[in-house]
């Protein structure tokens, strides 16, 4: 089976190789090999194979003639395969869906180029383009300060440092920091600024919808050579060996946690319950998450976090006890103390974004 796959894949390459050379009149072996992601040896083998193609009827003839003397490929006869094959449905869709997604990316000003490219590609793909309408990608528009993405693009282009006022929901803190911007990332539907944070002395990602304020500074951006961009294809949040391992048990209503946070492991328990293991450098947000989950989630480990969660819940409840005492006193002073109807809080399954307001 493996050989079968390879031979059709190779055929695909050969059918692109001939027009690639024809459209450029002549092109170097090294350049071509790089464009097709093969070694020069493989490329020469491809060229030999093309040159050897022979048809026997009505009269024997060789439809393809080419040479690669001196490292320059020239196709002098290509017959019917001088043009590339049409785009397949998958191929047309992959590009069109991506192009349409780009039109939604904040800070990407070149809408006119996107629109023109889409139209040209649709025309060239013909029927193969139609299915792409059934795939859509929506990119969140950060509702932070207006024109934020544009300002960051401008700072990137000018190579300037920026000052950020940034909200950290996990600690419920507004932070002030100077950042040397590196890139804008759009990952998992959200826009991030990647930059060298001079406060943390490390590469950090800042979600644009959590930026409270931004100022482009006069100082030039100078991320140190050690500042390497995050490999977004590996996932944005990767645990480090120093991270704390947290074990949570979730009820069926709390299963969304496994979808929302990157988990090291997820184990099915009885009745739709889950046990998940997370790794995090900072357990503050897990404590908050546990308060939010109530009986739908329970921290099992580490013991220090179990205690911290219970303490936090007890402290919060104390507030309500104080409030009740105050209310009872006030009610006692009122003549008419009809109790307002109280309904049990419904747990909404769709309310999954812990930072939804952000």
């Amino acid at each position: 089976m493996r050989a079968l796959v390879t031979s059709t894949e190779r055929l695909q390459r050969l059918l692109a190789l001939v027009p690639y050379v024809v459209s450029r009149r002549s092109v170097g072996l090294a350049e071509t090999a790089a464009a097709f992601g093969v070694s020069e040896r493989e490329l020469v083998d491809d060229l030999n194979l093309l040159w050897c193609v022979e048809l026997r009827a009505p009269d024997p003839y060789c439809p393809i003639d080419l040479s690669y003397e001196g490292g320059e490929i020239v196709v002098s006869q290509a017959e019917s395969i001088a043009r590339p094959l049409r785009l397949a449905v998958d191929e047309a869709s992959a590009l069109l869906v991506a192009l349409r997604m780009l039109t939604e990316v904040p800070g990407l000003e070149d809408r006119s180029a996107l629109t023109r490219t889409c139209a040209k590609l649709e025309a060239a793909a013909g029927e193969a383009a139609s299915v792409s309408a059934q795939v859509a990608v929506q990119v969140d528009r950060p509702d932070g300060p207006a024109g934020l993405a544009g300002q960051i693009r401008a700072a990137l282009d000018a190579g300037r440092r920026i000052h950020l006022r940034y909200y950290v929901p996990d600690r419920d803190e507004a932070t002030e920091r100077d950042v040397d911007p590196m890139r804008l990332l759009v990952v998992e539907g959200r826009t991030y600024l990647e930059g060298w944070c001079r406060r943390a002395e490390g590469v950090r990602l800042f979600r644009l919808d959590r930026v409270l304020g931004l100022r482009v500074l006069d100082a030039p951006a100078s991320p140190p050579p050690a500042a390497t961009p995050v490999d977004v294809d590996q996932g944005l949040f990767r645990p480090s060996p120093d991270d704390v391992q947290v074990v949570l048990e979730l009820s069926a209503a709390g299963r969304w946690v496994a979808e929302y946070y990157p988990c090291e492991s997820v184990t099915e328990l009885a009745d739709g319950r889950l046990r998940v293991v997370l790794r995090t450098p900072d357990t503050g947000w897990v404590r908050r998450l546990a308060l939010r989950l109530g009986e739908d989630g329970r921290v099992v480990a580490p013991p220090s976090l179990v205690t911290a969660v219970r303490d936090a819940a007890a402290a919060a409840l104390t507030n309500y006890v104080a409030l009740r005492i105050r209310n009872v006193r006030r009610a006692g002073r009122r003549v008419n103390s009809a109790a307002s109807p109280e309904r049990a809080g419904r747990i909404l399954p769709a309310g999954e974004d812990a930072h939804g307001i952000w």
Partner: protein
Amino acid sequence: MSRRKTERLLGLVVCLLSTRRYLTAEQVRRAVPGYPEADDLFKRMFERDKEDLRELGVPLETGVNHPFDDDPGYRIRRQAYELPELRLEADEAAVLGLAARVWSRAELAGAAAGALLKLRAAGIDAAGADSGDDRPAARGIEPRLGTPEPAFAPLWEAVKDRRPVAFSYRAAGRSEPQRRELEPWGVVNRHGRWYVAGWDRARGATRVFRLGRIAGQVKFCGPPGSVTVPDGADVRELVRDWDSAPAQDRTAALKVRSGKGLGLRRNAVSVRPDDADGWDVVTTRFADVGWFADYAAWFGADVVVLDPPDLREAVIARLKGVLA
């Protein structure tokens, strides 16, 4: 073996592209080297070759040259085969390069790379497609689309081929997955997650499913072409309606510790100092008690719900749940 097969397939493509007339299998056998002598072996190999070409997207046509011809013939019309003429300006090629990178290592990455290869073969240089050279339109921006959900591949195929599917689905908060049969109309990525929208056969209504909640395999339960997407069906809108936030038609009064609860303050209707020192009273709008109680509980002892009572009780229930 593989090299000989490639040679044979290439010969077949060139041969069928070069003819205007339909060529019978026998004529193909005489023209293209590499087919075996034995008739049954040839037949089987030829069938497989045709299938392979169709899978690559080669528009192989079947027909007869004359109404009285017994055996069907084959040809490839050049117009159907060739990528139409396409020219891109430098800025267009740049955004194309950026688009090709969007899928990165996700499901359609191979398809995007294949498309780019064909466009390159047509003489287009999509700048920056895989090299780090200067791309004015795209400098400093890296958009990515992931498909971590295993259900994406079969559902995309089902959408493409218009085939109904069956899968088991665990709706939010449910402990047991349920079997669903769906005529998929399209897939949508929203907030970084994939959804499929379509006609739920058992419910007799349009439904939206989150791919991450599909348990186990997605199976086809009908032939290709058996799903009709109704005119005007907008999958994007279906998913948006399903997922959209309800109207914020209720008001909450919260006691918030000074300097805390920034998320709440940012969306507040009003903030005024409380009678007690070190606290403010924040008035804000909300839509759903359960959802907003989740959010208020997140702030722990820094936020106290004063009103309405149902919201307050919902937060208290969560806190008691922690201690239970």
